């Protein structure tokens, strides 16, 4: 039987029409075939079974980004330094997914520790775009985008974003990517990139699936002191909300130079369709946007450089025969275990927080972030949502990415760094194709207003 959607599958399982135990081995076989073709996984659990006897996601195949700890299943964060590492505990979101009855089928590929926009900084191989294997899936949650796009079985991916790592792969693979408000989903068990910006979210085939999964994983967690007290809700109910009367703004800085004009036009066209549906669409200016990218990298890399200090080959992960003193030993481990981009970011982040630089870079970046949050807050006092392109370019070829300098690559994050560093929820939805390649639209809303992005995203989806 061919079951197209998560919704139909879950209903069929519930009614007894399908037995999850019969279906799962078949799904895993398919996943293995996809793995051969596009490499979305670092680990596949061939014996995946429902983790609880019932629940809202009973029997649903779910993949988890490899930076999220899974008890008893290898978790590497895409780095060689954690090769073979088996966490002794589940991340809170994994516990919640297991309690919902889902089956965790594997861990998805990513840029090492989330350090990348194209999933090309992967210690275990880059996932290939199912729409064109010469092209990138986007990053850093590239494996999540890849398996979601390629899956010919019901499935939802858990991804994670610091500065755009859900939106980028969603846009490049033509899938839906939901980045929740900072604090909405517990970070307990997430291997940190930049703790003040890391957000666990979802990549899925449709808006409904993302809303459904967010309902399962969100909500306060005492183990993560930064997790919000705001209660979880059934986010699927927003799918039927009307956009009529909604005020939507197009920030002009997100449609200016550096953005593929064809992408900009497609996004504007969709905005016009929303207007036809009764939304009020206006142009606004967010002049601080240009400061977001540098400030984002200052904060993210300062935090990352301390987060990565713990990987020294002593208590877990990569180990070698102990030779020399502690300094010599951990230097050897880190030299071998970290990839080039991780090393670049550790050095960058370490400089940004050293005496003499700290005030000018690290502390100043915090002031910039406060101003950017303020700018968003002021905008959201007048508008329900902002609409922007998800990525400034179409999915690039691997051969072109290798020619880009690090700064050119960092510049690919211009659509996503500001909302990500401000902790605003975003939803990336596919809005069509240009030259056969997918284009995504990013909907940004105020803190804890995921519902509005879901309502707008669902309407866009219907327009297809």
């Amino acid at each position, binding site marked *: 039987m061919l079951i197209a959607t998560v919704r139909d599958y879950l209903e069929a399982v519930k009614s007894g029409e399908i037995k999850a135990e019969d279906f799962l081995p078949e799904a895993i076989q398919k996943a293995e075939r996809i793995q051969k073709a596009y490499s979305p996984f670092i680990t596949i659990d061939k014996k995946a079974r429902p983790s609880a006897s019932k629940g809202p996601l009973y029997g649903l195949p779910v993949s988890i980004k490899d930076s999220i700890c899974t008890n008893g299943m290898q978790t590497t964060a895409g780095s060689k330094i954690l090769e073979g590492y088996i*966490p002794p505990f589940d991340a809170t979101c994994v516990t919640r997914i297991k309690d919902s009855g889902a089956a965790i089928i594997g861990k998805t590929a990513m840029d090492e520790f989330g350090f990348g926009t194209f999933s090309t900084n992967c210690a275990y191989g880059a996932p290939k775009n199912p729409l064109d294997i010469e092209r990138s899936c986007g990053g850093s949650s590239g494996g999540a985008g890849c398996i979601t796009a390629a899956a010919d079985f019901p499935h939802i991916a858990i991804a994670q974003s610091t500065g755009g790592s859900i939106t980028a792969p969603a846009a490049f693979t033509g899938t839906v990517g939901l980045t929740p408000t900072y604090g909405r989903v517990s970070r307990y068990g997430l291997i940190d990139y930049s703790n003040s910006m890391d957000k666990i979210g979802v990549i899925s085939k449709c808006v409904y699936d993302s809303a459904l999964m967010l309902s399962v994983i969100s909500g306060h967690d005492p183990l993560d002191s930064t997790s919000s007290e705001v209660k979880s809700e059934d986010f699927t109910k927003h799918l039927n909300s009307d956009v009529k009367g909604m005020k939507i703004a197009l920030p002009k800085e997100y449609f200016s130079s550096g953005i593929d004009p064809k992408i900009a036009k497609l996004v504007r066209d969709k905005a016009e369709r929303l207007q036809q549906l009764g939304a009020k669409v206006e142009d606004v200016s967010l002049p601080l946007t240009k400061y977001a990218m540098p400030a984002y990298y200052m904060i993210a890399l300062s935090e990352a450089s301390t987060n990565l200090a713990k990987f020294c080959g002593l208590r877990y992960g990569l180990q070698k025969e102990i030779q020399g003193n502690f300094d010599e030993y951990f230097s050897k481990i880190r030299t071998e275990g970290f990839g080039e981009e991780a090393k670049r970011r550790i050095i960058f982040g370490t400089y940004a927080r050293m005496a003499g630089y700290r005030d000018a870079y690290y502390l100043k970046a915090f002031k910039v972030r406060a101003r950017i949050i303020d700018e968003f807050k002021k905008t959201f006092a007048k508008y329900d949502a902002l609409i922007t392109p998800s990525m400034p370019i179409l999915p690039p070829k691997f051969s072109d990415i290798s020619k880009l300098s690090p700064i050119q690559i960092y510049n690919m994050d211009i659509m996503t760094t500001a909302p990500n560093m401000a902790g605003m929820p975003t939803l990336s939805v596919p809005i069509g194709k240009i030259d056969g390649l997918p284009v995504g639209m990013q909907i940004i809303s105020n803190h804890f207003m995921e519902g509005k992005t879901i309502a707008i995203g669902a309407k866009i989806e219907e327009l297809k």
Partner: protein
Amino acid sequence: MSVMIGVEVHTQLNTESKIFCSDSTDARDKKPNENTCPICLGFPGSKPKLNKRALEFGMLIGLALNCKITGTMFFSRKAYFYPDLSKNYQITQYEAPVATEGHLAIGDEKIRIRRVHIEEDPAKLMYVDGDINTAKYVIMDYNRAGTPLAEIVTEPDFTSPKQVRAFLEKMSSILEHLGVYDSSKEASLRVDANISVDGGERVEIKNITGFENVEKALSFELVRQNGLRRVNATVKRETRHFNAELKTTSALRTKEFEEDYGYIFDPDLPTIVVGKDWVEELQANMPELPDQRVARFIKQYKLNDYTSTVLVYTDKCLADFFEESCKLYKKPEVVSNWLMNYILKSLNWRSERIRDSKVKPDTFIEMLKLIEDGKITERYAKELVKEYVDTGTSPKKLAEKNIVKMSEADVEKIVVQTLKQNSNVAEEYKAGRKESLQFLIGKVLAATNKQADPNIIRKLLLKELESK
């Protein structure tokens, strides 16, 4: 030549659980690394969670030292690679410590307190078959990792090593009275001291344990630095180590620049806003502090200043013992006298704290009652103290064989008999050799098996000698 001394006092806070996880801080009967979890071992994905009690202990210290409590505080990461740090950074407070700008009076002088902050203790490193430079390898015990620490930093206001010691003794008593510190735990108070003399650079002496050692280390440094200055030699800026056996300090490393720890805000721990209500609540429930207790002892028990000070400042549990005993035996002066002059001496001899000893208020006052009832002599009681402190056996039981005191008539018989046996000594006394009396008292006492009161013996001897 004038001298400026400042200290940093590090103390473990005796909360039940660690500062950022729920492991117990008490590892006394535990195997190495038994009190650990993914959080204090810094496992990937784990996140710290602040133990509010540790923060409150820090605030209590701040309040007791007359500090301002910081309204908005946060934690920072102090980054440096060292195997005792599971994350290769320490969670501490940098820009926003718990408390700032306080003071503590030492006699008539005010020592300013710069800051009080809390942080996590690193793991314990044990060097196998050698020291840090010679050991072939190191073994690590993370049971200690994550125990809350408070660091108290003074301004360089001390003018003598002796004053520093007085400060540390007072500080330790304050911490004990606050109930935040357990002085019986190993190395629970560690001191870094900095000292400079006129025309010299600041010298730091790291990690000294024991107040006596702090005074000795500083005294040595003072002599050394003054000696250098007297011959116009320079006192270098450096960090020195105190050798407790040799009572000297030696250079550890020359600091050419401040170490750069690249502090960042710890993004896993949200900013804490301390409202007025919280501070007021802590203030209202503040335990009695040692100075207040001394004042109360003077008033309530009619003790003099010296006695009250010794009882309170020697050791909090001595003052507690005193008060408990007074509840059972309502003669505070007698209690304090026996406690300070006899029990304490015996305990000191055994290097034991009263809390950990076999001495208990109920058995202790048993002895005082035996004396009061005339069942044992004071003199005998003083001899009994040692055995009592050693064994904790009830004084009633210890004194059983001597409990029946001789009647005066019986003593008189022995006096007469003794004078007969020592007639030559009696003659000497009559001839004017007054010190012979003491010899005779001793003789009678021995003859009574020490069951007679020496005062009575003296009285009876004088009566006999003068009548003849």
